[in-house]
């Protein structure tokens, strides 16, 4: 038994989605993590809670609210239409947005922990050595918090690959655009095509295991996490 055309398309799409989402999450999650780790603002609690919400909400519930928010009557949907971008649901970019939101805590929290564990001192030292804010970030924070960034990338990627409920809700199951591996497996199961489901699921497990293995081996110093 091998992969059908549709399976291969779903695999390619999933990899593209997960890679893109991971990059977006690192770019977006780092400043949020930074702010959460450093701020003494009274908004720290509320913002931290919002970031963590996807941990608690069932994916389909989250998906439904995203659908309302991004839809033609939702505020975000009206905004994207006003920008001339059209609507996000049922598009690849809709999946990116949904997955970014859904995987946000998995990226923010390891980075936040790493920055908190780092403390202020290395940054102060760098400042007394003439390093400006960006310089400090790239020459001190990034190398010292590397395990945190690694963990964040691994979790963000893996979680996006495994994501199902939100994707199902926002995606509309369109081949080549939004039908990712997890949805494809679900379809096989629902259609009682267990053979194909097993094959695809096993591939996904092996692939994920290998990705995690490689990343963890590259990064054996996991003391803090």
């Amino acid at each position, binding site marked *: 038994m091998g992969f059908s055309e549709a399976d291969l398309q779903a695999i390619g799409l999933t990899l593209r989605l997960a890679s893109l989402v991971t990059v977006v999450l690192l770019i977006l999650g780092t400043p949020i993590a930074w702010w959460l780790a450093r701020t003494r603002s009274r908004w720290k609690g509320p913002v931290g809670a919002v970031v963590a919400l996807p941990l608690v909400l069932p994916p389909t519930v989250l998906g439904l609210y995203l659908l309302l928010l991004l839809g033609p009557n939702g505020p975000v949907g009206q905004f994207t239409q006003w920008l001339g971008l059209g609507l996000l649901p049922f598009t690849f970019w809709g999946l990116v947005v949904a997955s970014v939101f859904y995987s946000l805590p998995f990226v923010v929290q390891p980075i936040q922990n790493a920055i908190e564990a780092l403390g202020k*001192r*290395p940054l*102060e*030292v*760098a*400042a*007394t*050595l*003439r*390093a*400006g804010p960006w*310089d*400090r970030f790239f*020459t*001190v924070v990034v*190398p*010292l918090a590397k395990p945190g960034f690694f963990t964040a990338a691994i979790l963000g990627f893996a979680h996006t690959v495994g994501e199902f409920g939100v994707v199902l809700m926002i995606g509309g199951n369109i081949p080549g655009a939004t039908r990712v591996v997890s949805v494809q497996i679900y379809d096989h199961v629902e259609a009682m095509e267990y053979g194909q489901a097993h094959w695809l699921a096993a591939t996904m497990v092996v692939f994920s295991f290998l990705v995690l293995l490689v990343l963890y081996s590259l990064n054996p110093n996991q003391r803090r996490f």
Partner: protein
Amino acid sequence: MIQDAIHARFQLDYPGFSLQVDLELPGRGVTALFGHSGSGKTTLLRLIAGLTRVSDGYLKVNGEVWQEGREFLPTHRRPLGYVFQEASLFPHLSARANLAYGMKRAGDAAMGREALAQAVELLGIGHLLDRRPQQLSGGERQRVAIARALALHPKLLLMDEPLAALDLKRKQEILPYLERLHDALEIPVLYVSHSPDEVARLADTLVLMEQGRVRAQGPVSELFSRLDLTLAQDQDASAIIEGVVLSHNDDYALSRLEIPGGFLTVARLQRDIHEQVRVRIHARDVSLALDDPGTSSIINILPARILELREIEQAQVLVKLCTGAGERTPLLARITRHSRDRLRLYEGQSVFAQVKAVALMD
């Protein structure tokens, strides 16, 4: 030469702690910010570095304004060097890369290299450069950190208890390097410490801090012998005296020092004739006599005049004296209250101070 080259004025209010200072500090030599923990000395140093920011502050260093009103030069733009209390080397960089980190960013490469070579030489870390911070001892790490600050060719060096995290042995290992710094550096150094010993050895000027305020400020020898300050009331209360090596007597293994308005005989010093030395005489090592004891086993017997008497405990009295022809050299003596009453000591009286021990500071 510019006197009072650093002018710092800060006010800060935290719950349970406030700081209010208005200081003029010399633009040369080592100024110690001295006080107990919680006295605000580290906070003051951080304010000067720009690591802590208050809206109401003024800071001018060697003619450059670093903070005034809304103007605030961020730390990385201030031409300073900072040595933190604990080892603060970047763990992901070798000692050499740590040194290079600041140097690269400080501008002038040629000057940096020269400053670096000098710092490496001064602190004796040439053989450590390829090691990682984890492979260095605490003392070695701190020497690299000091060299890293010096390699910036700073216009002001700030040191926050650089020895506090080290044990006695490591302290003894670093102190000679710091003393060499003191002699070699042309720039002002602010040195935070709570150790009278370090201050006595290293500092020229002393700023005594208590509860976020400046309690007193002046030359080290003057403040050490002021009876109204905590320094003189300490068990280790002592007078700091600057002297010059006059002669050596190799037969008896003794050296003779000239001090302002007098002489001291001490154990043979490994110093050249005419070299400047700083000695410390503990109050507990000085006893007083009304008449010249003449024949005594004690070598250093100095004619002195009582300036002040102060009871510090029920049984103890601290006596401030001055000695020498011009009465320029301060001396402290700790005696029993009983002795004071028996000898009927009073202020202005002429006495003889018998000095049992003299400790060399540098």
